[in-house]
């Protein structure tokens, strides 16, 4: 029996869980305090579980938890702290690795550069361990049995920009962690649900048919944009997620690092060297100083003092300050510059990956990424609104009417104001109206609360945001032309899952047939598009704008020899389905099945591309 609706925010830097009992009326999501090791031998329950995993050295003994005395690793606050003084034993940013397009995300690669005594784990396993910690904490609190997390309805959030394979890997981690009744939800949608929860019924006065809400989510590690339109259907309000942005590895951590870099330079200029642990403290101090300066406009500077590592404090404490000018220059103008509507993020040509690393955004300007998003999604409302009247001006941008902020970074009024001002200038030049700001949600825990709200909504309590898949998916078909050295055979892309496919629906079989060799893995190139909204399943693109289709990690199909002989070529068709969980399921169906309902699953993201392979050795 299901007793609770549960929402989990599996974040890049922090994880949180909200729950609400299903019995009883008007229950509001409550954040569960998660017991975690905060220092050697000390256990404390805190609302946020830092998404870090620490492999304790054998000299440290077990990392005991109330539910397991002999555990060899720690998740949470102590793991985060160990990231400073024993970094090679700590995994951080597992979520960014989980969405890394060119590595094998099921391979043991983390922590990067771990010593030999550590058996490295995969990005999937790291996420599984964080979720497992939540499962154990939940069961310890509620007593397991019928109240075990495995029996509750769990909504797990992912960035809207996660592609099909990253979503699938997230589900894999959740299932391994013992979460059985699972649904995925995009984080910006969760933020909007949290906002409706915070506003109560008043929200319906603030969002009306015709509104387009732009959700700007700048978290610790990632930046995510989504647009959600309010439309009227059969006399009642409906919310439809119409567009999502690219996955941008850019967030508050980058800002703190940039400030720390500046101050380090300043200190070293004064002849005061900064060691590694001081640098880590400097990053923390910069975050605190930045928040103080943003929080109190009357301050001109925030003093910063960094203790040395030794036990003497006086005489060896580094002193400096972060001035308002500096924080304005680095954070406001550096990350949120005033840019023209047609500016685009600079992209660094991808050098051969000699070192295994995360694909951080090469342009730090959130505003440029936003300009690019709005321009790419200019046509996002076309389907909802129908064709514009003849002669009407075609907007060059998607025009939001309201903005909802999410993520810790966006707590700063200064940054919100800069973003809104810039956006309004763009809209003005494109013939649009200024946006309103939707206020009222707690930005730190909104996603977990919103996810829990969605779990309640799924049971019929409240309005549901529709939208389906945020991408159309394509499989690459190589033309059979004579091989010419140095020239890649032309590839066409066949749509296997159209944009906006809803959960629990199947796309019709695309007519194309593939020949698959029995017993051998066959790899297909795989693409996604966040802008091609009109392609139906089966459409073949011979030629496309490079900006419209992103190549995703390839997918692979292996036909078991069962009933057939090795080496036979079997003609199959592809069938796509969006599962109830919210993942894309691709299956191959033989044209001449040996038994009824014969199908094989096509594995998404089986392994990385060649770049990932070479990185394995590092």
């Amino acid at each position: 029996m299901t007793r609770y609706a549960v929402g989990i925010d599996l974040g890049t830097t922090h994880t949180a869980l909200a729950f609400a009992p299903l019995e009883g009326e008007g229950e509001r999501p409550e954040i569960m305090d998660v017991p975690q090791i905060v220092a050697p031998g000390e256990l404390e329950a805190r609302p946020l579980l830092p998404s870090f995993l620490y492999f304790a050295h054998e000299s440290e003994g077990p990392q005991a938890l109330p539910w397991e005395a002999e555990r060899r690793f720690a998740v949470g606050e102590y793991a985060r702290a160990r990231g400073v003084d024993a970094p090679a034993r700590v995994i951080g940013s597992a979520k960014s690795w989980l969405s890394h397009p060119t590595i094998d995300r099921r391979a043991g690669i983390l922590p990067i550069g771990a010593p030999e005594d550590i058996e490295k784990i995969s990005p999937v396993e790291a996420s599984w361990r964080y979720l497992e910690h939540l499962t154990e904490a939940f069961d310890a609190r509620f007593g397991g049995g019928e109240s075990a997390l495995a029996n509750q309805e769990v909504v797990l959030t992912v960035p809207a920009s996660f592609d099909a394979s990253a979503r699938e890997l997230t589900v894999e981690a959740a299932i391994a962690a013992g979460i059985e009744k699972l649904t995925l939800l995009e984080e910006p949608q969760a933020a909007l649900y949290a906002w409706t929860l915070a506003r109560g019924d008043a929200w319906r006065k603030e969002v009306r048919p015709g509104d387009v809400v732009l959700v700007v989510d700048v978290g610790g590690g990632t930046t995510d944009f989504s647009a959600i339109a309010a439309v009227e259907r059969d006399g009642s309000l409906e919310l439809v997620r119409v567009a999502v942005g690219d996955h941008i590895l850019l967030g508050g951590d980058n800002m703190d690092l940039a400030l720390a870099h500046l101050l380090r330079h300043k200190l070293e200029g004064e002849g005061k060297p900064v060691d590694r642990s001081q640098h880590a403290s400097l990053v923390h101090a910069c975050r605190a100083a930045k928040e103080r300066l943003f929080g109190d406009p009357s301050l001109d500077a925030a003093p910063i003092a960094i203790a040395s590592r030794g036990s003497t404090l006086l005489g060896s404490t580094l002193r400096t300050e972060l001035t308002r000018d500096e924080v304005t220059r680095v954070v406001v103008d550096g990350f949120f510059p005033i840019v023209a509507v047609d500016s685009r993020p600079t992209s660094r040509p991808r050098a051969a990956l000699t070192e295994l690393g995360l694909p951080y955004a090469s342009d730090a300007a959130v505003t440029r990424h936003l300009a690019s998003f709005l321009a790419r999604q200019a046509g996002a409302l076309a389907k909802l609104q129908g064709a514009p009247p003849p002669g009407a001006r075609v907007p060059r941008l998607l025009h939001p009417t309201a903005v909802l902020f999410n993520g810790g970074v966006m707590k700063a009024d200064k940054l919100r104001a800069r973003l809104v001002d810039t956006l309004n200038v763009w809209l003005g030049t494109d013939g649009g109206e200024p946006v309103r700001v939707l206020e009222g949600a707690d930005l730190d825990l909104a996603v977990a609360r919103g996810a829990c709200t969605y779990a309640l909504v799924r049971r019929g309590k409240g309005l549901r945001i529709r939208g389906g898949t945020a991408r159309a998916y394509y499989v690459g078909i190589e033309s059979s032309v004579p091989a010419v050295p140095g020239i890649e055979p032309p590839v066409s892309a066949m749509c296997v899952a159209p944009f906006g496919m809803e959960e629990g629906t199947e796309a019709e079989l695309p007519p194309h047939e593939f020949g698959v060799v029995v017993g051998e893995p066959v790899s297909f190139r795989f693409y996604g598009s966040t802008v091609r909204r009109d392609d139906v399943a089966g459409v073949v693109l011979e030629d496309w704008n490079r900006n419209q289709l992103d190549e995703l990690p390839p997918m692979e199909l292996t036909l078991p020899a069962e009933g057939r002989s090795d080496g036979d070529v079997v003609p199959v068709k592809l069938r796509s389905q969006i599962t109830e969980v919210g993942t894309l399921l691709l299956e191959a169906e033989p044209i001449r099945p040996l038994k009824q309902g014969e199908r094989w699953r096509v594995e998404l993201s089986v392994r990385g591309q060649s770049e990932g392979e070479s990185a394995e050795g590092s």
Partner: protein
Amino acid sequence: MLHRAGATLGDVNAPPDDAPLPLVTRLWLAWLCFFRVLIDGTFAARVSAAREAPRLAPAPASFTASPTSSALQLLSLLQREGRLVDFLQQDITTFADADIGAAARVVHEGCRKALRAHAAIEPVLRQAEGARVELAAGFDADEVKLVGDVRGQPPYAGVLRHRGWRATRLELPLLAGGHDAHVLAPAEVELG
């Protein structure tokens, strides 16, 4: 000291340790008492009671040693977050105020964060310091200390000099079995 005082107060059968009075004083006292017993009936009754129960021992108070593990844990917490033990263990006399100020920022910021995370502290009295306050009969003497010209019966009117502090919550992390709380901060040895 506390231990000795406790033993004396606690021992009911200990002999009276009052010093004997000199003879002249005793003669004078006897003379006074003779006439007062004759005139004052109440006084006579009290003298009679004093004769029958030569010494009533005062009731003992109990004292307990508080367990030290949570105090050690709090020290450890304040050291970890705010370097408090480092600060208190260092001799600061020879340092300039600027150095002490820099260190105090580290200590203040860290300890404040730790304190806020683990305890809720609020003033006992919410009025502004310097304001006149009234104390009704039955006020809690643990909460409010009377200072200055202390006499008479409540209600009292006075000036609030210090608002006082009350911890409304204190939660420390749980300790794993076998954890040695005496190690306030482990020594750090860097390898490699």
